[in-house]
């Protein structure tokens, strides 16, 4: 009896081991004869990017450019490598890929918040020699050019768009709740009171969504927390003193806002909000199904509802309104927005940097850049695209979000930022789940930041100057 069970057990263990080894075989990156091809002439190039849930806009765009490139460079092969992963997992995967010449892609899609950290890590190749000979670089906005500049002054990436952030709100739900169709909140309290009204008058609808906690990664830190913090009198980093800000009242107030929306039930339940799929759920389910009234989100989310998007919803332009996120008490410029964006970069260990650069140039022709800005719901960074009539009229919200560029703030472009961002989302999660009070979470954050940037000498309690 026992021996037979043992046999079953051993067989099971064997099966498990087999499974494990099969997995590890599957995960080693195949690279068919990439090493044999030289940088000049026909080449095999690999291009890695993040694929968000069901979104295929980037995939379709890249497939189109691949066809164009392969036709213009006979014998060349472009391999598109979508990395389907949540925010933090994507960064980890591409960083691991870039560590070895055997796995490094030739082109990588880098978020501007991480690029300084990856530049410091030595993962990326400076593009100055290529850019110097490229007649299209003058077409890029200066702020966009600076997005991928390292602390050594060299440029490491070609931006393909930027974004701004604001409040999206459902006019039909607002009508049911007796709120104005042309909503203009002036303070955080205006936002909260609208959410409370909706909770009371329109049951079954989530009044307000902001991304929060670790599963949503940088989206929580930027779209959620920093949209609040930069509306207080405080910031993350003091550029005058070149020090990180700790112990600020604004930080605690922002955490208090998080606590309010989650503890009063104005936001999705913390459990749902902590699902790693929250981002695509908001874009493809909650908003189109009209189950969410107010969403603090990015300029690009209507991309989901285009014909080419994951969840076509033509009515969005009449159902949804956009309004700027107000500052805490209406002071300062009265509204807040943050900007980021993504860039195409070439890993230092790429085997075909010249061919990779050729491909990036193809990605960034005026025609292709305009196509991606429209389909990908981006704010254009090329002047000739920004002034293009077709682009300007491409969506009902383009003008609104482009105007926010005048008040927008950029995250501290420093190598430490990603680590600080991780501490922000940790603090948010502990507050939204009720595990810590805002003051305690802020104190933990302060301690962690001191550890990250090298002690109390590198931090300050004053936020003056941005």
């Amino acid at each position: 009896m026992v021996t037979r069970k043992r046999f079953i057990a051993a067989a099971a263990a064997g099966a498990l081991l087999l499974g494990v080894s099969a997995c590890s075989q599957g995960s080693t990156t195949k690279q068919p004869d990439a090493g044999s091809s030289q940088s000049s002439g026909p080449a095999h190039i690999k291009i890695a990017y993040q694929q968000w849930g069901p979104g295929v806009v980037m995939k379709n765009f890249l497939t189109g450019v691949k066809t164009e490139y392969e036709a213009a460079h006979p014998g060349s092969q472009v391999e598109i490598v979508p990395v389907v992963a949540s925010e933090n997992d994507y960064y980890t995967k591409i960083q691991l890929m870039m560590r070895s010449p055997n796995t490094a892609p030739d082109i990588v899609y880098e978020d501007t918040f991480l690029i300084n950290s990856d530049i410091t890590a030595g993962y990326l190749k400076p593009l100055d020699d290529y850019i110097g000979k490229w007649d299209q670089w003058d077409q890029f906005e200066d702020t966009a050019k600076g997005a991928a500049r390292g602390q050594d002054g060299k440029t490491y990436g070609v931006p393909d768009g930027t974004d701004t952030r604001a409040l999206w709100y459902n006019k039909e739900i607002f009508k049911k709740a007796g709120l104005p169709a042309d909503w203009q909140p002036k303070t955080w309290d205006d936002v909260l009171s609208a959410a409370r009204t909706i909770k009371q008058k329109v049951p079954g609808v989530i009044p307000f969504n902001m991304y929060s906690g670790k599963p949503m990664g940088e989206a929580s830190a930027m779209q959620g927390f920093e949209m609040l913090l930069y509306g207080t009198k405080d910031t993350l980093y003091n550029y005058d003193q070149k020090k990180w800000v700790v112990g600020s009242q604004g930080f605690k107030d922002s955490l208090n806002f998080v606590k309010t929306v989650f503890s009063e039930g104005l936001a999705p339940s913390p459990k749902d909000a902590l699902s790693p799929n929250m981002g695509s759920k908001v874009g493809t389910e909650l908003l189109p199904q009209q189950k969410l009234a107010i969403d603090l989100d990015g300029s690009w989310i209507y991309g989901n509802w285009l014909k080419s998007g994951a969840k076509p919803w033509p009515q969005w332009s009449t159902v949804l309104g956009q309004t700027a996120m107000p500052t805490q008490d209406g002071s300062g410029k009265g509204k807040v927005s943050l900007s980021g964006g993504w860039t195409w970069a070439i890993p230092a260990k790429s085997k075909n940097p010249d061919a990779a650069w050729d491909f990036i140039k193809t990605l960034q022709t005026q025609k292709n850049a305009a196509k991606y800005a429209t389909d990908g719901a981006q704010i254009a960074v090329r002047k000739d695209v920004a002034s293009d009539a077709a682009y300007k009229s491409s969506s009902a919200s383009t003008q609104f979000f482009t105007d926010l560029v005048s008040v927008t703030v950029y995250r501290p472009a420093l190598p430490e930022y990603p680590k600080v961002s991780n501490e922000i989302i940790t603090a948010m999660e502990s507050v939204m789940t009720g595990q810590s009070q805002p003051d305690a979470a802020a104190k933990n954050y302060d301690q962690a930041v001191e550890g990250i940037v090298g002690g109390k000498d590198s931090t300050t309690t004053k936020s003056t100057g941005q």
Partner: protein
Amino acid sequence: MTTTVAPSSTAAAGTPSRRPRGAKLVKMLPLSPAIGLMLVFLAGPIIYCVYAAFTNMALTGPGAANVKFVGLDNFRKAFSSGAFTNSIWLTLVFTLISAIIGQNTLGLGLALLMRKSTKVVRNFVGTAVIGAWVLPEIVAAYLLSAFFNDDGTLNVMLHAVGLPGQDWLYGAPIIAVSLANIWRGTAFSMLVYSAALSEIPKEIEESAEMDGAGGWRRLLFVTLPMITRAVMTNLMLITLQTLSVFGLIYAMTRGGPGTKSQTLPLYMYEQAFSFSQIGYGTAIALVMLAIGAVFSLIYLRGLNSEAA
């Protein structure tokens, strides 16, 4: 390696058997590929891990470009961090509830009951319990998160008998993952104990019965003392297995909500791979190794004192 006096090796070497050193080397020769592989694939990663724990190695930022030796910084950071203390505490709770209490007693209980039951019951229970163990970890985790979900099987059953349910994965995550681990791991203890119990001679128990010892007394004073070695071995194995459980918890709760089910392996993973701090992550791995070693020492002492 039993060192028997093997005359055959001398012939191969062609040297007189008076030079035992050379003979030994020759004898070791067939083992060298195995030893080489062990060094490369077993000792290598461990040594690398120890090295990394004392550096600022990272996946991005300065720690990725120039790896620097930082002494005990990672450990200092760990022991002054609330998140780390929290995860040590959770790891101990998880190990205590799910392995030492849950799997161990349940496994023993099942083994004892199965000894007395009919063949049909035995086969049925055995299949069910081992079924949980045979399932791949991720499948088991998926089933269990459906079971413990807010509108999952457990709550449906509780409501059916008029008991209040709760959102287990959110309200009591460490209990939920502990129960899950009991469900999954009990088969192992059951097998170990079945084997041990089958080796107790029937006569001893019968004579105890003749002397008038009841069921509980027989268990306490006859059966258990006779299987102490199996108990210690089993405790050691399941403790070490449970300390390093990762997939089950990650798939069920991701260590959350907040850090309410973030045991050491999950904290280590988050720091190393979500937050890119490889050096710090490996330092935590070393601490985990130390905790495992402490448990092993305790159990080994138990084993030795029994043997003496």
